[in-house]
């Protein structure tokens, strides 16, 4: 029997009530992973500052790579371990912030045995800045992506086949405060996404971003009192590279589809895609619709968007109230049980003319 593979997605920068903070979608993801043989997910879902407590069968796939997977351009090859290079933003001038980053790298290397080949600084500040779109989602702008691409290239030439990158992102403290109060999206996420997307696009290897905070930002995060529990991991540690390095440790390598082997994971191997019910406009959902892969849309996971199955007239969507119900539907799918027969009322048999 082929493996039961589920994709679990919570887009970044859209204020998802579950997964829009730091690693707060991990329990739901691990629940799905207790049912599925494998779960393909992305950094935003499981990154928890220094915490990455996703189950071993959760595969860490960067967002751009995930999009290419859904467009049938690549397959995913599981690995025993990657060799990670780390890019640090020379735009951060504070030695103590850099020391925290370097100590984090050393801690993950020493305690978890992750192969980190080394680190390098960008030649100039990366200068990423968060921008709020008309939809309310946070995205990012970069003036010159070559600043961090050149640094990544240096590490790849030295043998890195995965890149962790940590940069300073310009955000408004007003947006950060709203986020900590649970009233607005994470302002960093959209900029982080486009940086890692660019590296994945250019080099075709796993990558992930961690914010590099100034001491002022660390002070805001760690000493703002007791904050929304979903952001709790940010208030106890500034070691953002921790979760990224743990995630990249065994992140699958993208393989061009024409070179894919039978044991690589392809889109046809996916049994279901789980998404917030108001966030069905991304490539994974639209591709799932085209390829007749069921989408499990979770109502409780609210976002700033309202892109529902009704608006897009999507036909392959199973709407559920919460991740507990999603888990039930997935368990049915895995066992070959029609989930509708578990609900009441049960529909009468139809005669087909």
């Amino acid at each position, binding site marked *: 029997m082929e493996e039961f593979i589920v994709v679990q997605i919570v887009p970044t920068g859209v204020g998802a009530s579950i997964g829009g903070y730091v690693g707060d979608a991990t329990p739901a993801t691990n629940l799905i992973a207790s049912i599925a043989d494998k779960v393909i997910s992305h950094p935003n879902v499981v990154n928890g500052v220094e915490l990455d407590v996703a189950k071993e069968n959760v595969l860490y796939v960067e967002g*751009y790579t995930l999009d290419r997977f859904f467009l049938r351009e690549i397959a995913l090859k599981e690995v025993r371990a990657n060799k990670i290079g780390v890019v640090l933003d020379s735009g951060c001038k504070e030695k103590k912030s850099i020391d925290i980053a370097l100590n984090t790298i050393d801690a993950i290397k020493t305690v978890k045995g992750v192969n980190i080949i080394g680190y390098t600084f960008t030649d100039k500040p990366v200068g990423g800045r968060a921008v709020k779109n008309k939809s309310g989602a946070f*995205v990012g702008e*970069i003036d010159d*992506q*070559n600043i961090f691409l050149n640094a990544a290239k240096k590490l790849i030439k030295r043998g890195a086949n995965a890149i962790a990158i940590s940069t300073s992102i310009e955000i408004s403290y007003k947006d950060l405060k709203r986020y900590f109060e649970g009233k607005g999206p994470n302002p960093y996420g959209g900029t982080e996404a*486009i940086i890692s*997307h660019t590296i994945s696009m250019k080099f075709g290897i796993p990558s992930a971003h961690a914010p590099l905070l100034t001491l002022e930002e660390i002070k805001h995060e760690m000493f703002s009192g007791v904050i929304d529990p979903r952001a709790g991991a940010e208030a106890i540690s500034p070691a953002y590279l921790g979760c990224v390095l743990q995630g990249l440790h065994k992140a699958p390598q993208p393989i061009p589809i024409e070179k894919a082997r039978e044991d690589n994971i392809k889109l046809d191997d996916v049994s279901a895609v789980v998404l917030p019910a108001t966030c069905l*406009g991304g490539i994974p959902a*639209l591709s799932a619709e085209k390829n007749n892969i069921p989408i499990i849309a979770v109502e409780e996971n609210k976002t700033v*968007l309202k892109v529902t199955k009704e608006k897009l007239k999507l036909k392959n969507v199973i709407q559920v109230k919460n991740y507990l119900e999603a888990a039930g539907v997935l368990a049915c799918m895995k066992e070959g049980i029609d989930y509708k027969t578990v609900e009441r009322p049960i529909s009468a048999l139809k005669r087909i003319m």
Partner: protein
Amino acid sequence: MSIFNQRFEIEINKRKHHIDTIMEFFKKNLKKNQIPLRYAVVDVKRGKLIVEASILEE
């Protein structure tokens, strides 16, 4: 060489899947040195898909 954000209104084609409509739109309307890095439908209005995209310009 930059990454910027843009909003597009794309006419829905009822005979096509939305993903194909969007990909064809980008192929037709972006310059050769512009790559849609990250994009999604953020609304549907008056028969159009409202797409917000981060575009990488090489």
